């Protein structure tokens, strides 16, 4: 039985991941900001076979609560095998272009909150000397694009942060996983028209659980996004600037 902590646990992708661990009979601790939805998920995971499920209401932007909430989690679970950070928001890009305040607030939810959480988590996991820290970033972090560079910048910051943390924890037995999904059909993207590139959260969740169990460092989900982003990253700038990406 593994012990799993999920932050942003009401995320559709995170919930699909939790269901897979529940089915394996693992013990799960959920943090999210909506009590009602959290309660439903706790119940559901118990029915699906989780050994035990705990939860607490938590807003990732409440920085003052970070230390105490993580202390509670580790007190309860003891050694944690997997931590998954899944919270995130999709900014209104044009709003951010006209309001530095909005841009900063998006950076706060999508990057700074995780920087704080990961700093505490890294120390706790380093102490234990095993386990995996997995963070959902995005393919959007691979290159800033006019359609959503505030989001992209936050995710890129996280990816660089994770790269360094991985380097630091490598010799300490802690694996750091950077998960970069492409388009996923979730509440976050409900207003987008869906096409062939879109994946279901259940599918992405399978990829996440697989990447965690095989101790991967960086994973694109579904796999073909590695190729797509390879092309996007390597587009010569004079061409890139003329695209509508």
């Amino acid at each position, binding site marked *: 039985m593994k012990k799993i902590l999920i932050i942003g646990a*009401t995320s*559709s992708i995170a919930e699909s991941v939790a269901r897979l661990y529940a089915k394996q009979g693992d013990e799960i601790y959920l943090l999210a900001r*909506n009590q*009602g*939805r959290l309660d*439903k*998920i706790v*119940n*559901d995971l118990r*029915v*699906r076979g989780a050994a035990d499920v705990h939860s607490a209401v938590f807003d990732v932007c409440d920085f003052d609560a970070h230390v105490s909430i993580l202390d509670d989690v580790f007190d309860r679970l003891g050694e944690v095998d997997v931590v998954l950070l899944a919270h995130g928001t999709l900014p209104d890009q044009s709003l951010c272009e006209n309001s530095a305040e909005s841009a900063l607030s998006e950076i706060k939810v999508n990057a700074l909150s995780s920087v704080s959480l990961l700093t505490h988590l890294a120390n706790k996991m380093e102490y234990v000397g095993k386990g995996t820290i997995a963070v959902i970033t995005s393919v959007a972090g691979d290159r800033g694009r006019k359609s959503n560079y505030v989001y992209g910048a936050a995710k890129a910051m996280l990816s660089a942060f994770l790269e360094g943390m991985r380097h630091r924890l490598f010799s300490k037995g802690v694996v750091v996983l950077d998960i970069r999904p492409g388009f996923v059909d979730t*509440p976050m993207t*409900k207003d987008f*028209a869906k096409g062939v590139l879109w994946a279901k959260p259940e599918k992405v969740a399978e990829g996440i659980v697989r990447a965690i169990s095989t101790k991967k460092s960086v994973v694109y989900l579904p796999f073909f996004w590695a190729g797509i982003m390879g092309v996007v990253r390597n587009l010569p700038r004079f061409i890139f600037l003329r695209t509508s990406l």
Partner: protein
Amino acid sequence: MRLSGWGRYPYIDSHAEYPLCDGDVQKLVELAGEQSLIGRGLGRSYGDSALAHTTLHSLYLDHFRFFDKKIGLLRCSSGTTLASILELIIPEGWFLSVTPGTKFVTVGGAVASDVHGKNHHLDGCFSEFVESIKLATPNGVVECSRNQNASLFYATCGGMGLTGLILEVEIRLKRVPSSFIDATTIKTKNLEETVEILEENHSSTYSVAWIDCLTTGSGLGRSLVMLGEHTKEGGLVVGKKAKLSVPFDMPDFFLNGLTMQAFNSAYYHRMTKVRSHAIVHYEPYFYPLDGILNWNRLYGAGGFLQYQFVIPKEAGIEGLSAILSRLSASKKGSFLAVLKMFGTENCNHLSFPLGGYTLALDLKLSREVLSLLDELDEIVVAYGGRVYLAKDARMSKEVFRKSYPRWEKFSELRRQWGAHKHFNSTQSQRLGL
């Protein structure tokens, strides 16, 4: 977004909402104002029953509430699919008490259409095993069952989403010794023999007949009658996920009269013996088409209609022959034609089944087919039968009112709960509900 039912006719522009919790539903109802709302599950109903100005998708309302493994009682949110319920309950030795011919439907959809399975003749509809429902009506969220808000319960089961959005459902499951079925297939020569074999095997848990409805004359109604019993053999194995998919619309000529005739004959002649036995997994037995995702695309971009009617037992062979002959003559044929025996009618206001025989067939959409079905409606109504709302995209208000005599009671109840102002589908508007 452009939205249709499984038959891909009609399409309408609809605004899709995905409530994340019960509270969201209440807010959406308040926000909707005069615009019509309707619940939507997996869109496996064929016609326009899950279409409206705004569709409330139950996709994210998919949580198990509890599962009592000792007594086989399960409660879950309405968007939970039968597929995921099976995955949970099979390993514990339980099965769905009633299941339609696809596992890709939601519990909410199964209640709203009060679906039936191959065991209707003995066990009745899905609602027979529903203990309780949590429903969001415009007048508030209420729990309803046979003991509590009973009239709302009888209206909601089979009520096509027109009493409000179903939030949670509690169902009783069926104990099974394994996940396999002892299946017997009997080849019959004509309609009389088909009906006779179905009646002779009334005590068989599951029964259904696949009719070759393109054969005329003395072979009219020749069939493969399929019977089934749960068996002890094989253990408790959950099915595999569907692999095959039809990604594109098939060209129109794919399902013309000739190819269909070839299909139906091949199916029939594949059976060399009159009677054969096999132990089969529940997946191919109950869900033969689920292995091919999006098979509705086989009918091309133009869409298709499924016509399912029931006629009372008294009308029997005479009524079925009249309709089958009319169909054969039209050469408009069918990819699937399924004949089943129904047990007695329940007391829900709009549930479809009544004691007798039901036939379901697919027809590629065309103007001639639409007028053919109007003609068939007349015959069905004349024999005292009715047409299934979960499959319907075209029935007239007059035919509906004649064949669903409790519609007035249903309308009255809708008014009582404030549902008539908010919950309306393209279908309910057409039917004058």
